[in-house]
Structures are given as C-alpha cells and as structure tokens.
C-alpha cells in the first residue's frame, strides 16, 4: 500500500488493488470476515431505520456508506482494548460483541442497551459530540499506569474536530504519550455543514500536528486500508509509541439521522456521485474476482443477516420496559434518603391501583 504520502489505500473503488495487500489481510477468511461484518452493519442499519420509520424506534443515525471505518477499526482492535464510540459506530460495536438487540434497546430508549454483555469496558454511545475524547485519554492513562499493553480508541466525526474537548484531549494524549488512538470519520458532513465549512485545515489528519502526534489519512471506504492503518497505530501505541490520529475519508450516504432531511442542504447528485465509492461494492468485487466470494455466499449472507436482524427486532419489540424504580436505582451506588422518598412516591403513583 502506498502510505508514504500520509494517505493510504489498498482497494480502488473498482475493487482493483492499488498496491500489495498488507500481510494482515491476505487470507480469504480475514477478507470475507470483514465483508460479512460490513454487510451485517448495513443490515442492522436498514432494520433500525425500518423500525424508526414505522414508529417503533427513536431517532436513529445510520452509518450507510461508512461501514468500512467502524469495521476496519474494530477488526484491528483486541478484546482488551477499549472502544469509545460516537453514535454512528454500530459496525464497531457489533464486531466487538454488542448485540443487535442491545443496540436496538439503546436506540429505542432503554438504558439496558448500554449495559451490554459484550465488551464490558467499552464506553456507551457518546451523543455530545467530541466529549468522549478526553475519556479516551483517561482510559489510556489507566492502561499506561497499569502497564497494560492496551489502547483506548475514540471514534468521532469531522464536525467533532472543531470541538475544544477534542483539541484538549489530543494535546494531553500527545504530551503524556498515552496509548490512545483517535479516529476521525470524515464523512464530509456535520448535519448540514460540509467539511470545507468546518475547518480550513488542509486535512483533518493535521489536527494531530497541534498535538505533536502522528496523523494520517486513509481511504475510509477501503476496509483493508482502515484496518491496516489502525493496526499500525495500535501497535505503535502498545509498544509505548504514544497516541496518534487517523482521518478516514468516507461519505455519509444517508440523512444525518432519521429526523433529518438532507435534501434541504445537499444535492442528490452529490450523493449519487459517491455511491460508486461505497465500501461493500469494492470489496465484493475484489472477493469475487479472487474467487473468495460467490453469488451463493452473497445470498446466504443476506438471508443470515436478515434473519438475525428480524430476530433482534422481535426480541426488542418483546422486551418489557424497565420497572419504574430503575429510574432511581442507578443514580448513586447507595440511594440517598430524599431520593428514596421520591422513589416511593413515584412507585405509588405508577402502581396500577393509583388514579
């Protein structure tokens, strides 16, 4: 892969190699695994959007077209690393073991969705843009103090790079040489604000310069390149080389969220132009070309994913809401007296007998 320029790509949009595959991604199993994970992410997004459109899920942020970033990043991480996602990283959460049911619960307005059985140390979805970047520095400092060879990986968008929290976190991770990786998913839009109106920085990778850490760009629609760039950054961090930043260039093919109507601020023509570059297309092309993937594989995967997501959806819809006391019982480890009074009153009011 030609990454010297600070921009790396392995697979062109047409599915042709633009350079040798990294060792980490030569075998059919790895490659098809990445493809399956991206398809699964897209399947989840589709199901979530469908549920929202039919009034059975809350506002949802689809990752359509960006699947290579969360999947590429997560596939390079170890289980003991910690992921700090924004709200568009289902692909990474799914890879790391968060279940579709748990994700649906969260997006459906049930806190239990963030109490996932999978990666217990991973942070929940972060909605206040960029505010989780300092948490990643803290988690990384914890790893460093315990001399664990783990890395904290925060993922956020192009818009987030304008937030002071992110600048402060990058700076501290840099000066303390923390085992942290900051991944900027540059999907070209922050709701209605295009990348060029977000910052005059030549690249968002250059946000790293202000923090004195390495920053590189990668084709965010090339899951192999994303994975490889992440592997290198994680290895550097594990071996004491400190923090770094990756700008993954991709495109938000969907509306910002189900509450958004992107046609108000961007041309459908622009969106159409980006469809040919989307990440599944090119990997599928490469896999078929290489003989790793057949029409039958594709059909089976589509069926599997559909079945998994249908099952998750019905499990979600069958999940009874939490009991009223759950509103109170996680505020503090021990319930203070005055809160106990409020709890009692609330339970009385909520109980069927109450008027």
């Amino acid at each position, binding site marked *: 892969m030609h990454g010297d320029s600070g921009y790396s790509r392995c697979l062109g949009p047409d599915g042709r190699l633009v350079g040798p595959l990294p060792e980490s991604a030569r075998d059919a199993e790895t490659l098809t695994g990445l493809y399956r994970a991206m398809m699964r992410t897209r399947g989840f997004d589709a199901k979530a959007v469908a549920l929202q459109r039919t009034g059975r899920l809350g506002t949802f942020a689809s990752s359509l077209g960006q699947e290579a970033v969360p999947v590429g990043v997560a596939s390079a991480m170890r289980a003991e690393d910690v992921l700090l996602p924004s709200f568009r990283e289902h692909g990474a959460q799914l890879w790391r073991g968060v279940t579709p049911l748990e994700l649906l619960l*969260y997006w459906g307005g*049930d806190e239990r969705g963030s109490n996932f059985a999978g990666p217990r140390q991973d942070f929940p979805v972060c909605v*206040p*843009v960029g505010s989780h970047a300092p948490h990643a520095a803290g988690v990384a400092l914890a790893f460093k103090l315990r001399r664990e060879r783990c890395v904290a990986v925060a993922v956020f968008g192009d818009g987030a790079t304008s937030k002071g929290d992110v600048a402060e976190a990058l700076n501290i991770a840099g000066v303390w040489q923390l085992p942290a990786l900051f991944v900027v998913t540059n999907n070209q839009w922050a709701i209605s604000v295009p990348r060029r*109106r977000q910052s005059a920085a030549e690249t968002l990778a250059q946000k790293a310069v202000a923090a004195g850490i390495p920053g590189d760009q990668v084709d965010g629609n090339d899951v192999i390149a994303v994975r490889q760039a992440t592997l290198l950054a994680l290895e550097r961090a594990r071996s004491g080389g400190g923090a770094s930043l990756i700008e993954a260039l991709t495109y938000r093919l969907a509306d910002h969220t189900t509450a958004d109507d992107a046609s*108000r601020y961007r041309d459908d023509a622009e969106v159409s132009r980006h469809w040919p570059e989307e990440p599944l297309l090119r990997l599928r092309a490469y896999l078929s070309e290489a003989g790793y993937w057949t029409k039958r594989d594709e059909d089976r995967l589509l069926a599997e994913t559909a079945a998994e997501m249908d099952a998750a959806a019905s499990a979600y819809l069958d999940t009874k809401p939490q009991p009223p006391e759950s509103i109170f019982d996680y*505020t503090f480890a021990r319930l203070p007296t005055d809160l106990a009074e409020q709890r009692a009153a609330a339970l009385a*009011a909520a109980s069927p007998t109450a008027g």
Partner: protein
Amino acid sequence: MAEITLVQAVTLALAHAMAEDPSVLVLGEDVGADGGVFRATDGLLARFGCDRVFDTPLAEAAIAGLSIGLAAQGFHPVAEIQFTGFIYPAIDQLVNHASRLRTRTRGRLTCPMVLRSPCGGGVRAPEHHSESPEAMFAHVPGLRVVVPSSPRRAYGLLLAAIRDPDPVVFLEPTRLYRASREDVSDDGAGLPLDRCFVLREGRDATLVAWGGMVREAIAAADRLAQEGVSAEVIDVATLKPLDAETILASVGKTGRCIIAQEAPLAGGFAAEIAARVAERCLMSLLAPIERVAGFDTVMPLPRLEHLYLPDNARIAAAVRRAMAYA
C-alpha cells in the same frame, strides 16, 4: 394575522427583528440552509443572506464567545444552541464574560446577545436532548432567563429579548414547538421581560409554572374546576429577573401555592419561588407550599420518560393535598 405554532412564532420574531435592525445576526449549528434542526431559522438565510445568518463550526463555547465579541462591537447576535443538552460548554462564556462585560467595564462594553436553545422533554428525544437546566442560568447575575409557553408569548418575549441591551438565555420547550397554534400578528410588539403572566384567575390555589409545565398546570386547573376548586394559573415566563410581586399577590389572595417544574427538584427554580413565598407570604399561607418537579435522577431515556415528567395529574394531586390541609 395567522394561526401559527410556537416554533413558527420564533421564526417570525427572528425575521421581524432582523428586518427592523440590521445589527441583528443569527448564528449557530445548521441555522442556515437547513433552517435549524427544528426549522426555527427556516428561510432566514434565503431572506437575509450569508452576512446575517451564519452556520458555525461545531463548537458551543465558541458560539457563545463569538457572540460576545460581536455584541461588544454593537451587533445583536442571536445564537442557537441546538439542544440545551449541549449548552454546558457555553456556560463558562456566559458566566465569566457575557453576564459581566457591562459590570467589569463599568458600562464601557456591553453584551446585547440572545442565546436560544430548545429545552425540556416530552418528545421521546434521544439521550441528552430533553434537559431543563434553566435554574443554572437563573442563578447567574447579569443574565436574563426567559422560557416562553405559547406562540404569542414566544413572539413577544423573543422580540424583547433581542432588543434588550443585556444578555438573555431564551429556552424554548421542544414539546410546545408544534403542540398548538395561536393567532399571532406580526406587529413587532414586544412583551415585558420582567413580568409573570396570569393566564387564569382563581380563588383557591395559585399554580405557578413555566415552559412545558404551563399546559399541564392549565389542564390541572381544568380538572380541578370540575371538582369546584378554582385555581389561578401563572406563567412565570421570565425567571430572571423574577416578577415576585405578581406571584406573591396571587398567593396572598389564594393562600395556596403549587409550583410545577420539569427539572429535577433539588436546586431547581421552583425552590426560589417557594423561598420568596415563604419569606413574604407566610401568614397568608393556608397550606404548605407544594413543588411538583422532576425527580433528582438523570432524565430517563424515552421509554420511561413519561414516569419522570410531572403532569397535570401530579399537579392536581398536589392542589388537592393543599386543599385538604388543615
């Protein structure tokens, strides 16, 4: 004269203010082409152009700070924070600068800015999109804090806020944005920023509320009317400076005071109102003051939100307790 929603009244007031005063600017995230995520600034970019309406980068502290610099230079910026859950990074600029520029410089520099933000719950919004932090701002000297509860009051109060020579935090309850319509004439008439509004006269109890709780208070008053209890309903509207006189006069008359707030109980603004009443109306009180508020817990996600938010049933129950007291 047209029947419009509260959010349309906000847009109408913004347009009126921008038309009457070229120094009025609108800035914030997605307030331009998108017209704001709630469409509160819909059409302003097209009508007033990109020298009056600015889509900012994603940076709340800077949105407040930019506004302070503009205001010190004589502009009247009206900045939007997309949701109050994201207003916290702007607090430093509001507390340490916007609210004190006049005092610090003995009037040499001033800060005529408005910070608008949708607030409150009840719309099954995502995490961090349903907060009610008005009390934090009402405790800051030098700030005005306004929470409208009807299209007409939103129009008049926002116009007054924009014309005010000092900084105003203007919190718009999302649940009311499209909840009802009202005839609002675009006559440019502002409403006073230091008055409570008595929405309904009553004899037996005074219901004090603001923002999203006003509708619940009125609904409670309706229920109670059928029980023969006559409740006066007051919309505080401007929390700071507080028009205590109107509230005290009412409680002096009814002898019972029930205050409803959506925010968590402890340290909420209902406490300030209760304190004023306790200080000044003690002897006219026929029953203990009642506060009906959110719990001292984090706002639950949508599935349990309805259990958290005070409603007219809880307000009516509090009034009944007060009536039964002896």
